[in-house]
């Protein structure tokens, strides 16, 4: 190796500019922080750092309410879309987003997000979909796919016993009030880059007054799935990713 002092150009900061600290208690191999980085970078790149209000749901990601360097409102489990509605109506020029998990958005708060979308509310909902209630110990949620392992479906979700998953992105895409709906993932670096473009489009749509937008991000939960961290992305691709398929589901 040469020993000269070569000139270095930073191409990736350790922390996104909108994160006060990288420390967190989330599990090793968790996909949520990765998705949050995408969100924060997008906001900064769109110049929205000083004109954004986020509304945070309740799940593992809630821990980030302390570290995101963005004005935030902490909502109750499931209620973020309505809170975001109230925020947006009073601050119509600001970028308003929610950060929710599948338990939060698709179980407890299914009605909230659907009505918000139907209303064509001009906010962006960000869904971190891992198919489990991570925070309470990895139980099955309304998005867990058939065959998926969770704490309450250790041998895989079974339609007969547990019912069928709700493919929330597709459902939201049905609603006329929805302007932009897309589903990405943090399965690998390519997916991250792809998802980031979706995130950008969603906020661009909001800032253009397009109506409701939603970016769903499939995230690994090795803890709830009972898989080694390194196998998380692969397991996700084989299970969640087969049903909640990546792609833009609605553009307007």
């Amino acid at each position, binding site marked *: 190796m040469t020993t000269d002092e070569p000139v*270095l*150009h930073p191409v*990736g900061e*350790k922390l996104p500019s909108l994160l006060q600290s990288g420390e967190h208690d989330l599990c090793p*191999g968790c996909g949520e*922080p990765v998705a949050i980085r995408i969100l924060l970078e997008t906001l900064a790149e769109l110049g929205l750092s000083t004109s954004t209000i986020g509304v945070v749901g309740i799940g593992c990601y809630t821990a980030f309410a302390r570290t995101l360097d963005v004005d935030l409102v902490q909502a109750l489990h499931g209620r973020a879309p309505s809170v975001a509605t109230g925020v947006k109506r009073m601050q119509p020029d600001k970028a308003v987003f929610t950060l929710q998990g599948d338990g939060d958005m698709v179980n407890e708060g299914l009605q909230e997000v659907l009505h918000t979308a139907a209303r064509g509310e001009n906010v962006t909902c960000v869904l971190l979909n891992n198919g489990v209630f991570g925070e309470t110990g990895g139980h099955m949620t309304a998005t867990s796919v058939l065959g998926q392992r969770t704490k309450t479906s250790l041998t895989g979700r079974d339609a007969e016993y547990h019912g069928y998953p709700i493919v929330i992105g597709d459902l939201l895409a049905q609603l006329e009030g929805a302007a932009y709906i897309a589903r990405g993932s943090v399965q690998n*670096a390519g997916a991250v880059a792809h998802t980031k473009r979706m995130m950008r489009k969603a906020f661009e749509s909001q800032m253009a007054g397009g109506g409701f937008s939603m970016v769903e991000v499939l995230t690994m939960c090795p803890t709830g799935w009972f898989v080694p*961290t390194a196998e998380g992305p692969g397991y996700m691709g084989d299970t969640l990713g087969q049903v909640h398929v990546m792609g833009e589901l609605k553009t307007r």
Partner: protein
Amino acid sequence: MSTHTVTVRGTVHIDIEMCKGCELCIPACRPAVLVMSTDVNETGYRYPELLPGCTGCRACLDVCPDFCFEVFKYEHPFTVEVDA
């Protein structure tokens, strides 16, 4: 022992104390220049170490859940000889 030539376009700083050993960065690195340590950090986790040949692509940074990476590109790429 034979050697071969590797082009170095970038490098990373790894905050090994932040690392939780999930190994997600390992397959993310196309040139496969990240390998897990045999040693553990203060909290008891193994962490990635950089071999020569980084391209500065920031894939590791993008997939790391624990904000361990800082990525740089060299203004002038250079080559090194490494053991095969």
